[in-house]
């Protein structure tokens, strides 16, 4: 999958995560393998509770690994942060204005006010929120909040962008608009992305590769290359190739979803 000319950015080998709990240890992910090349957009799809968020949080070093290896390889510039997360629940700070939220990562790294505001302003322009720079999050809609969250991650310019169902809580129209925005932004920057989603269509539309996880405990089930041409738009999702690939992925995923649902009963 990864050609010799591409550098590897993320490696996960036989990653295991076991949560201790009162009812006994819970294996969240078992022997999960993943390799992501620099500049690749990888989507992870899997039934609810299979350990996708756990894996992402391990990547972000917000959770420790029980055994195995998970690593993000540093780039040429050591001052660049390794990863930033776009959280499923937005997680933008209600007590900071939009621009201060977007500038947060830079501020933590000691950038001057002028410098960080210039960068934040640029990103606000790119996600169409320049007018709302001095608003507080409580004055924004859900879609706008998620855009702030995405801009906060991108303004920090990390080696790897980790996104956990960023559009999961949005309505269908807002989601479609944001998917196009993400495509546009990503195709301009070609950042390495690990993107978790519940939606097969979203994964095929955005990703270079779709990785499918098994039901709890999560491990590798299958992976699909998405060789739809770029730049893509929402129209891409009405092509025959798109439908065929989505169907094939659903074929592989549905057993796992059934298994996950059966175990929840």
């Amino acid at each position, binding site marked *: 999958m990864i050609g010799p000319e591409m550098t590897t950015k993320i490696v996960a080998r036989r990653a295991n995560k076991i949560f201790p709990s009162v009812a006994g240890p819970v294996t969240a992910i078992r022997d999960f393998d993943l390799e992501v090349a620099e500049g690749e957009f990888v989507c992870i799809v899997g039934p609810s509770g299979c350990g996708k968020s756990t894996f992402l*949080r391990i990547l*972000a070093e*917000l959770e420790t690994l029980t055994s195995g290896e998970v690593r993000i390889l540093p780039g040429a510039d050591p001052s660049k*942060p390794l*990863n*930033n*997360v776009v*959280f499923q*629940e937005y*997680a*933008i*700070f*209600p*007590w*900071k*204005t939009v621009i201060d939220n977007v500038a*947060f*990562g830079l*501020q*933590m*790294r000691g950038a001057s006010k002028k410098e960080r505001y210039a960068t934040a302003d640029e990103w606000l322009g790119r996600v169409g929120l320049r007018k709302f720079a001095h608003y*507080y*999050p*409580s004055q924004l809609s859900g879609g706008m909040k998620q855009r702030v969250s995405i801009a*906060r991650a991108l303004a*920090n310019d990390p080696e790897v962008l980790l996104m956990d169902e960023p559009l999961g809580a949005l309505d269908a129209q807002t989601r479609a608009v944001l998917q196009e925005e993400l495509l546009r932004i990503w195709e301009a920057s070609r950042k390495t992305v690990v993107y978790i989603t519940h939606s097969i269509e979203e994964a095929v539309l955005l990703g270079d590769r779709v990785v499918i996880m098994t039901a709890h405990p999560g491990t590798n089930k299958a992976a699909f290359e998405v060789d739809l041409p770029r730049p893509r738009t929402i129209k891409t999702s009405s092509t025959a190739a798109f439908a065929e690939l989505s169907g094939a992925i659903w074929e592989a995923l549905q057993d796992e979803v059934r298994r996950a649902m059966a175990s929840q009963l």
Partner: protein
Amino acid sequence: MKRSVRVEASGQSGSVQELWLLVLALIVIDVAATILGLWKGFWWAILFVDFVLIVMLAERLEGRIALRHQESYKRVLALGFPLLLLVSWELIVGAEILSPRWFPPPSRIATALWDLTVTFDRFNETSLLGRPWLIPSRLSSEGLPGVWALFQESHLWATLSRVLMGFFLGALPGVLLGMVMGLNRTVRMMLDATMSAVYVLPKIAIFPILMLIFPNPFGEGPKVTVVAISAFFLVAISTMAGVRGIDPVYLQAGRNYGANRLQMFRHVILPGALPIIFSGLRLALGTALIVIVAVEFVRAQTGVGFLVFYHWQILVTEKMYAGLFVVMLLGVLLTYALQLIERRVMPWSE
């Protein structure tokens, strides 16, 4: 109910006839009650009916008021009600339906308040406000010590300084301890049960012990301390709750974006806990006022609480009410000041 639904649905208010009908009903009921001599026995029932009619009237009036006047309309309602209350009180006591001895009419209370303000009690060497109009002449004759002496004779200043000093002396360490308890699991596990137990103890109950501890049991020490202790526990417990209540996803976001410990505290934990800290401060301020008035009832020669209790003892009820009014005013002003600070410190919570 049905009517108000219709009013809202059509975006229209009651018709003009309806308004006039209500005004008419109001007048007819009150005049009839007067003619039939019903006020004496049924003043409370008549006032209740009046109140209901006025509410109905105001509801129908609201829709007819232009949007830009809505704010003033709200203010008229908020100020109009207590005004009506005072007028009814005045009239009912004036007609000797209620005894002026126990319910002195507002006009006499106002006179008493004025009396208290302008007179200097030569025996106790006190006055209500400390005669602020003397400040310029004292300043020129005796300088700042003279002005300070004026402050010293003021009952209002005595209460205010006890409340403020006790509040700050209690709230600041309260916030600090609450932070530590919120952030450190071990400290929390050790202190939580004890704090919760002391928290429910009425702090006024430890006042006698405080009097024993301090070299001058009748001085300011025990009074300020009892206020401080009351504020301390309230603020510590709510600060801890505020820190514990921060959504963990914000802490994770802080970490993920590279915040160090100090930045974490400054940019995530402190602002995240502020709303609950402030609700604790509001409670503590109210409690501080209650505690200080209670203490002044029993053990003080100065303070607004003393003034109320003293005039109860000598049965000058209008001055007692005047004292209560000052306590109320103090509470309102202090709460308002805290609100202003809150809005400054937390501009995001509109």
